[in-house]
Every structure is written in structure tokens, then in C-alpha cells.
């Protein structure tokens, strides 16, 4: 299994508060991704990173920001959480070779009340 951890695994927060989710990898992969999974929507890309300090938006990036100051860490921040951001968040990594397959972390369940 790829070495990917996410923290926290579960979080409950109130509307309007900032929240930061962390993804940590031990594979030294160049590419890192944040997805959200919601019923009826599958996996949707929020932001991704193609190197340290190099990031770009995905299809559902509004309300989210990311940072990558080290190869191994990719942070997702909800500046002011809303109830629509209640979801399960997955981090993924890829070496960018082969079939471009990505390996996923265990997920963070976030509830915004």
C-alpha cells in the first residue's frame, strides 16, 4: 500500500470556522490531489499539485485553498466552512508515470454544522 495518511480522520466544525486538512505521503511522488466524494457525484477534484509550491484548481475549487511547502505534505484549507462542504475528503498521490494511476488515502469525514 502507498504510504499516504490523512489527518484528522473525522472532524465536526461549525459554519464560518476555518478548517485545515492534512495529507502526508512517504512515497516521494510529485503529484498530489484533493477530492471530495458526495452521494450522486462520485469523486470530484478540488485542487491538485504538480510540485512544491505548484498548484492548480480542479472542478470544484470554490471555497477551498491549498498549499504545498514540502514534497510530502499537501494541505487543504476551507477558509470559512459552509454546510455544503460537509463531505468525505480524499487525498491521492501519483508518480505521473505508467497509466497515471493515483493512490488514495483513507479519507477525512468532515461535518459542518
Amino acid at each position, binding site marked *: 500500500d502507498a504510504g499516504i495518511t490523512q489527518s484528522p480522520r473525522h472532524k465536526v466544525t461549525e459554519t464560518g470556522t476555518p478548517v485545515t486538512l492534512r495529507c502526508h505521503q512517504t512515497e516521494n511522488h510529485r503529484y498530489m*490531489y484533493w477530492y471530495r466524494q458526495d452521494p450522486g457525484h*462520485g469523486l*470530484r477534484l478540488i485542487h491538485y499539485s504538480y510540485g512544491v509550491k505548484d498548484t492548480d484548481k480542479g472542478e470544484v475549487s470554490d471555497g477551498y485553498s491549498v498549499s504545498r511547502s514540502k514534497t510530502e505534505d499537501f494541505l487543504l484549507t476551507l477558509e470559512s466552512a459552509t454546510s455544503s462542504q460537509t463531505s468525505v475528503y480524499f487525498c*491521492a498521490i501519483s508518480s505521473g508515470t505508467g497509466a*497515471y*494511476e*493515483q*493512490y*488514495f488515502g483513507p*479519507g477525512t469525514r468532515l461535518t459542518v454544522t
Partner: protein
Amino acid sequence: DQQVKQNSPSLSVQEGRISILNCDYTNSMFDYFLWYKKYPAEGPTFLISISSIKDKNEDGRFTVFLNKSAKHLSLHIVPSQPGDSAVYFCAVHGSNYKLTFGKGTLLTVNP
């Protein structure tokens, strides 16, 4: 517009029989096609992939077929086992090292 469609939200099969999961895509420029499996409360797990220059790839009980003229991808699981019960996502790679996922199909294999 959905670039990747999994039109069956769920599928139920008997243990030992074949499971066929389907996926349609819109863009003929996709170069790789992938299948993932997801159990509840876990992250998706990469299963198998196929290049656009091939029409079949096999790995044990799992075979992926690609029909480029129909823009159709399928995953065959033979024989199906109860442990195969999960949500299956198809995904495509187009550019920039990003994958686009379908909405998933819940497979239930009954003993």
C-alpha cells in the same frame, strides 16, 4: 457535461457468475482508462488500467475491455466473489496528470 458516465448506479450478481460493469466516455483523446474499487469508509483502490492503444487487459479475475469506436469501457469480474462487493469507479486520463471519475456503480455479489 459529464465526460465519464456510469449509467448503472447498482448491479447485483450471484457468487461465481460474471459481473460486468460499464462506463461510457465522450472524448476520443483520453489516453488511459482505469478502474477503482471502493469499500465503505476506505479510500478508493486502483484495480486495473488499459491504454487507448489496446482493446483488452487482463489481471487475474479482472479484465478490462475498451471499445474505442463506441467510446465504451467495461470491467469483467469472473468469477464474482462476495468480497468483490463494493463501489466501482471508472476513470479517464486526458491531460495534466489529472483523472476524471464516473459516479460509480455499487456491485453486490450475493452468496
